[in-house]
């Protein structure tokens, strides 16, 4: 029994040494995971924990945008719809039916999936800019409905008095961090799977994918509902963490914010949007001392970084520290002169 455990431990160590330590990006990812999980041991500051909780909630949202718009190329300008449906769904179920948070969040996310399917039907016939401009409309339509039914939705004030995610700040933090890390890993795995490859192919050339006998409509709907599910979960977490679900979750600026995060970090990566949220959201909080110029500084940072890294910050960084082998397409540290697998010279 002990031998078996030791065997697996040794194998884990070998995998760690040969697969993780060889690439700086993987080391950084592992460090990121560890740091996030150990953060409450380093500081008990409730303000800092609150920021990181919100950051991780939005990280799920940005990554889910990337899953839909980055990978399948279905530019979605109305991602706030999923977020808002998740938040309102969770809030309504919690307030009027009395379901605790662990039930409302997945149910709210299912609501978001449903809305993804509903908007998917008209949107599947559109592409490119048409799609982007059309999707912008849906959260605004829903917002109109929310304002028109103030008795149910609280109108402008939103639904308040929802039960808390958990008893304490630290538990809240751990719940959201663990949900975020696992959901982002799941999304990353999805994009790495067969389905993800088809998603990516749809982005590159939809006609060719259809010609290969793949039902692209079905895959696009799948992308819409998967992305809706993840975004809905982040909406539900947000509602229960802030204890309010208001119309601000449906605003145009919310949708734009998601697009900014994702493209800033680099689309078609999953890690890019997550990283971008972890850079930009705390940055925005850091700038709160100049309350008036905060958004202006934010916009300027985005503008100037884009001028130099139009492919996104994290892609740019990764290209600086890693090189792709021209022969076997495996990534290597930029310091190496030969590929670590096939020993072909790297230029």
């Amino acid at each position, binding site marked *: 029994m002990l031998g078996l455990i030791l065997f697996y431990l040794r194998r884990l160590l070998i995998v760690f040494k040969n697969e993780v330590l060889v690439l700086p990006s993987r080391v950084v990812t592992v460090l990121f995971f560890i740091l996030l999980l150990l953060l409450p041991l380093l500081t008990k500051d409730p303000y800092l924990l609150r920021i990181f909780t919100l950051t991780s909630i939005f990280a799920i949202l940005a990554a889910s945008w990337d899953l839909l718009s980055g990978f399948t190329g279905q530019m979605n300008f109305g991602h706030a719809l999923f977020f808002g449906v998740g938040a309102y769904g969770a809030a309504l179920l919690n307030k009027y039916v009395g379901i605790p948070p662990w039930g409302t969040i997945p149910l709210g996310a299912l609501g978001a999936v449903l809305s993804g399917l509903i908007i998917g039907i008209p949107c599947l016939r559109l592409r490119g*800019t048409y799609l982007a401009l059309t999707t912008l409309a849906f959260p605004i339509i829903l917002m109109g409905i929310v304002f028109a039914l103030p008795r149910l939705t609280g109108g402008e004030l939103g639904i308040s008095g929802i039960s808390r995610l958990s008893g304490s700040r630290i538990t809240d933090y751990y719940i959201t961090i663990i949900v975020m890390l696992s959901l982002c890993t799941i999304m990353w795995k999805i994009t790495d799977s067969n389905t993800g490859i088809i998603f990516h192919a749809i982005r590159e050339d939809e*006609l060719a994918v259809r010609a290969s006998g793949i039902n692209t409509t079905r895959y696009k709907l799948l992308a819409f509902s998967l992305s809706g599910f993840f975004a809905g979960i982040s909406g539900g977490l947000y509602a229960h963490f802030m204890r309010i679900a208001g119309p601000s979750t449906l605003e145009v600026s919310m949708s*734009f914010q998601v697009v900014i995060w994702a493209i800033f970090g680099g689309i078609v990566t999953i890690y890019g949007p997550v990283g971008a949220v972890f850079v930009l959201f705390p940055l925005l909080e850091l700038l709160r001392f100049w309350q008036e110029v905060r958004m202006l500084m934010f916009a300027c940072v985005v503008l100037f970084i884009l001028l130099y890294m139009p492919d996104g910050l994290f892609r740019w960084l990764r290209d600086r520290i890693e090189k792709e082998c021209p022969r076997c397409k495996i990534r290597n540290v930029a310091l190496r002169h030969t590929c670590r697998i096939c020993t072909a010279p790297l230029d």
Partner: protein
Amino acid sequence: MDLLLNIVISGLISGSVFALLAIGFSLIFGVARIVNIAHTAFYMLAAYSIYVITHKMGFHPIWGMVTAIVLVTLLGLISYKIFVNPIREHEGAVLIATIALAMAFQEVMALIFTGTYLSVPALVKGYFLILGVKVFYQQLLTFLVALLVMGVLWALLNRTKLGLAIRSTAQDREVANLMGINESRVAMVTMGISVGLAALTGAIVVPLTILEPHMWMHPLVMMMAVVVLGGLGSLKGSFIGAYILGFAEALVVFLAPMGSFLKGSVALSIMILVLLIRPEGLFGVYFEEER
């Protein structure tokens, strides 16, 4: 009867505004494939500069309008040159560059004017009565100027060499380039025209609206809806789509209970219903997929 006339007036005004905005937006989209989210931010900037020139400096509104249009067009060209031109190959980057630009403008205006609601006096004061309904001269002026500008624009695009260059670049950038059209210069000129149109819209509509730093959001959404409804790249489509949505908005505001909350929703629902039947919009030319 009063109600009907009010609806007609309000629909015509907002329809013309949307039409002017949407035409500018689809011009630059057609020529340079730039989805310019900052388009209505220029409209807001023009409105604010008129406020400054007429209120703070005390010039005549006509001078205010002219200077505002020139200034905003220059600003648009400069920001295009600095922020958009270097990254034009990256579609996504251009998109968020324009969003960030719009946000930056909004924040600058909020810093200077502190988000309070401001208003500008009408260019021509007074009103006349049609069947007992007040029609302000400013409303009439706005409508007529909008029609005039659209006519001039139509002539520019269809009757001049520059218009031919713009249309051919919109149709096929590479072939236009091969035919000796300086594509980047056409893009620059079109950007100027587009921003100028936005500024002009701001200038003629400013006495009818309230100035505040977020005033660009609602026209942005409606403008995009108009562009999609009418068909991207079709000026006729933008024109008709704008009046459809303008009237839809006016009808909802005047007739439905809590209409001002629902006006956006209803107009956008109409757009989606049309798209369900005609995915390329009312008069859309179906763009050949660029592969």
